[in-house]
């Protein structure tokens, strides 16, 4: 039933949806891969998103990093926003500007509403934050004033998954980053669960050392 609706969506959509190989109810719509990044127009994006809205529970617009036209186009028709930041000065700074744009240049904002926002911190290293060598989650939340939806720990599993062309949530669902993404998803769906930072299982030796360092 669901897939027939999706197929209908696929047939109707003026653009080519690609069905994911692993997840039957996930479709991908690649944006312009041409050299001309301005091939996307505001009207075009609006009509595609409004069409997809009719057929899917969730339409996730991945925004290009940085603050360019692509990012403003991706956020324009959003109902809510997930802001993804590394615990680094340049990344947090860009996020602050994006938050400003979310509150000014989106449909929701122009209609007098307030864009619901969530903050996701990636590549987080608990140990380095503890020793004061990395901005802690609280610092980033404090600076950006956006509630946390998840913290993804820095992990080798992410590159490993990317190397074999899989999302980390599928390549190793018990890995810390996979757990973090799954938890964040549940929060996005409205579950009220506390934000944790999943960690690698440490050997006894590692634990002893960690204990002494703390």
């Amino acid at each position, binding site marked *: 039933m669901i897939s027939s609706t999706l197929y209908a969506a696929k047939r109707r959509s003026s653009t080519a949806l690609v069905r994911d190989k692993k997840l039957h109810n996930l479709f991908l719509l690649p944006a312009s891969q041409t050299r001309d990044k301005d091939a996307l127009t505001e009207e075009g994006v609006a009509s595609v998103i409004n069409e997809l809205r009719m057929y899917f529970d969730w339409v996730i617009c991945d925004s290009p990093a940085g603050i360019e036209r692509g990012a403003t186009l991706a956020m324009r028709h959003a109902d809510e926003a997930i802001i993804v930041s590394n615990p680094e*000065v340049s990344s947090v700074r860009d996020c*602050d500007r994006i938050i400003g744009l979310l509150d000014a240049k989106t449909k929701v904002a122009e209609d007098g509403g307030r864009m619901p926002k969530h903050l996701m911190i990636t590549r987080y290293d608990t140990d380095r934050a503890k020793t*004061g060598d*990395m901005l802690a989650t609280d610092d980033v939340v404090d600076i950006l004033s956006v509630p946390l939806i998840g913290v993804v720990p820095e992990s080798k599993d992410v590159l490993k998954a990317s190397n074999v062309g899989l999302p980390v949530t599928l390549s190793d669902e018990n890995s810390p980053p996979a757990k973090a993404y799954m938890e964040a998803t549940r929060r996005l769906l409205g579950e009220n669960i506390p934000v944790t930072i999943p960690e690698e299982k440490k050997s006894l030796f590692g634990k002893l050392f960690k204990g002494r360092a703390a």
Partner: protein
Amino acid sequence: MNILSLFGKRGESASVAKNRLQILLAHERADDGSDAVLISSLREDILAVVAKRVDIDPDSVRLEMDRSGDVTTLGIDIELPAAKAS
């Protein structure tokens, strides 16, 4: 990790990072406000000049300021009414 660092002093780069961010963002957030004021006054001035000669809708003047890197550009977009046969 160096074994000595286990007992050594705590790093302080994170608090430096937080400080830098707070200063930087305070500056940028203030900037955005003054840009908006500047744009709205420019818009009014341009509208007044054009309106002297052409009958235009006040909403048809759009200004956009774009800062990227070292360059700031000001885009002015004025929509004129369809030409009347004279």
